[in-house]
């Protein structure tokens, strides 16, 4: 599944980022990397969401979110 299919108030682990290089680099610089745990704080109908990763919050558009592949993270933090 990808991040835009996530459910509010759940945590996920990023397993892959499938985005053009420049966007992937920007995500990496912000700490949104493969293997990191993200918490979904809010999500809108159009897929735009707020996530918390490594203690920072980011608003991420639906297109970018759908390129971030995730799986449920349970018991991990």
């Amino acid at each position, binding site marked *: 599944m990808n991040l835009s299919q996530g459910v509010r108030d759940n945590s996920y682990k990023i397993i892959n980022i499938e985005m053009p290089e*420049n*966007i992937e*680099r*920007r*995500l*990496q*610089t*912000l*700490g949104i*990397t*493969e*293997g*990191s745990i993200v918490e979904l*704080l*809010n999500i*809108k*109908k*159009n*897929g*735009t969401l*707020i996530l*918390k990763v*490594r*203690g*920072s*919050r*980011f*608003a*991420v*558009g*639906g*297109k*970018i*979110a*759908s390129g971030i592949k995730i799986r449920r993270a349970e018991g991990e933090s």
Partner: protein
Amino acid sequence: MLLEGKLHPELKSGGQRVKANLNVGFVGNPNCGKTTLFNAYTGAKLKVANWPGVTVEKKEGAMRYHDNTFKLVDLPGTYGLSSYTMEEQLTRQYILGDEVDVIIDVADASNLERNLYLTLQLIELGKPVVLALNMMDIVTERGMEIDMHRLPEMLGIPVIPVSARHKTGLDILMHAVAHHKENKVPVTEHQHKSGDNYFKHEKYVMVYSDEIEERIDIIKAMLKKKYPDLKNTRWHAIKILENDREIREEYPLNTEGITDKKYEKAIINEKYDFIQEIIEEVMVNRNEKAALTDKVDKYLTSNIFGIPIFLGIMALVFFLTFTIGDVLKGWMEYFLSAISDKTGLLLDLAGAGTISKSLIIEGIIGGVGGILSFLPNIFILFLALAFLEDSGYMSRVAYVMDGIMGKIGLSGRAFIPMLLGFGCTVPAVLASRALENPKDKLRTILVTPFMSCSARLPIYVMFSHLFFGNFAMLAAFSMYVLGIVIAILAAYIMKKISKESNTGNLLIELPEYKKPNKRTISIYVWEKVKDYITRAGTTIFVASVIIWALLNFGPSGYTKEMSESFGSYIGKFITPIFKPTGLGQWQVVLSLISGIAAKEVVVSSITVLCQGNVSGVLTAMGFGPLNAYALMAFCLLYVPCAASIVIIRKETNSAKWTLVSVMMQLSVAYIVATIIYQVGSLVL
């Protein structure tokens, strides 16, 4: 308080270079309080210039530290040091150059994990780094603690806790800078969990796994051979392994079989792994107390309440601008008319002639003073915008508005320049550079001038008071709404024409909410107010004198008969074109033309043109509330000022798009004013 007396902020302005023993660069993530800290040292005495070749602001200040002069440079906020954004490139080039001696890395202690990513990269660059841990008060508030003994041990650099807000630790930080200027290899006492190659590389703070370290060594050797003069080969080797565009182009190497996509990712991940180790060792009571920010965000970014709350906040901002601003404006007007009277008396005493008295009283004091009386309104508006920005709310607006903006083919982030457009079009157009997509940026630049900037405010205040009585505030507020509607409509039409839409690419940090800092806000507001006053003293001064000359001189020389003046001839010549818009009075037309220099000039011109009695002269010409409303709308929509044309030319880098922008503004203004006047005439 510690700072006062000992460290005298001192800046010799006027463009001359300050004699500096030490150049200190401030680097840090956006929203880490870097600028607040910088301001704490330099105060408002800044030299603001642009970085060479780009329009990103470069702030410089200077201070005395014992017998030394430190030159301080505030670098743009950046998350990393790759070459993918302009801020990152600028920071990197500046540090790599020989201009900087010591780097102060400002980190938000309450958000240490992400901030340390930049720290590790700065340490790798090889220049002396001092880590300033800002916002320690927030850390304590949340019941967390940072092991201040262990952190410098692991990073190998001095770590100084500071509070930019409360001005603590400032002296000690500069002390550390003075003593850390020697470029020593950091001493660390830490054994990395990852990789067992640390014996070989123990002198480095950031040690990668064996596989990567081996490759770094190979590339290093290649670099040394091919570029013997290159400093800090390790950093360059890491960047080549990371496949950094800029460094690869600058130092081409055949690294086939050495570099690989997987190492790029591994370098980043291993840095974060190390940060994880640091955090685990130095942070005590992490996440003990849920951040207030999340609770507040439940409402402010709520899918249901988000937009209504935003609209409510904006309504409050304008309400304050008009009510409080108007009270203060009354005092200002009283003060200005006193000056005008006193000057008149003085001039009579000095035996000044009619022409010079008319020039000073009607031309200069009437024109420039007319503008200055709106200073209180402008002050309140910028105060409110500064408050929204410094509290951390501004970036939430990008998220809240992302849905609506998506419908018109723009990212939510494009809403920030539009919102800043309420303050001034020039910085708003500049802010559009935060949009990565060039087409997004262009469309945002084209619609931003429709947002009603503060220079248009005097026009609304003047005409709504004169013609709308009790409904003055409503009439003025409706201009802001009209501006937003036109901007959205324009963006929508552009989306339909270009058939392109770039949505879903929003990416913006939502910083912790914080109590806005007095100093940061006062400096921000002071800069804007200073701008306004400077404009009053330059552009508006010149425009007022020109208008006065056009009105008092005619083909037969100096004349008291305004209808015989050059101004009236020019106005009357163009007036027929403006007939359908309800603006067929030559005084109005002439002030609209002069308003292209700067919007406030419309007010000063019309004041000079009507010799102070605007409502009397205009009413006598059949100019009523409907004409006034059409005039306000026209002023809202046509070219904001000459400076906006220049900045649009610079930012679009295209004469064609600048022309499109100007023509669009003029025709939209003409069409909307005509519709208002014609439809209004039918209905009323």
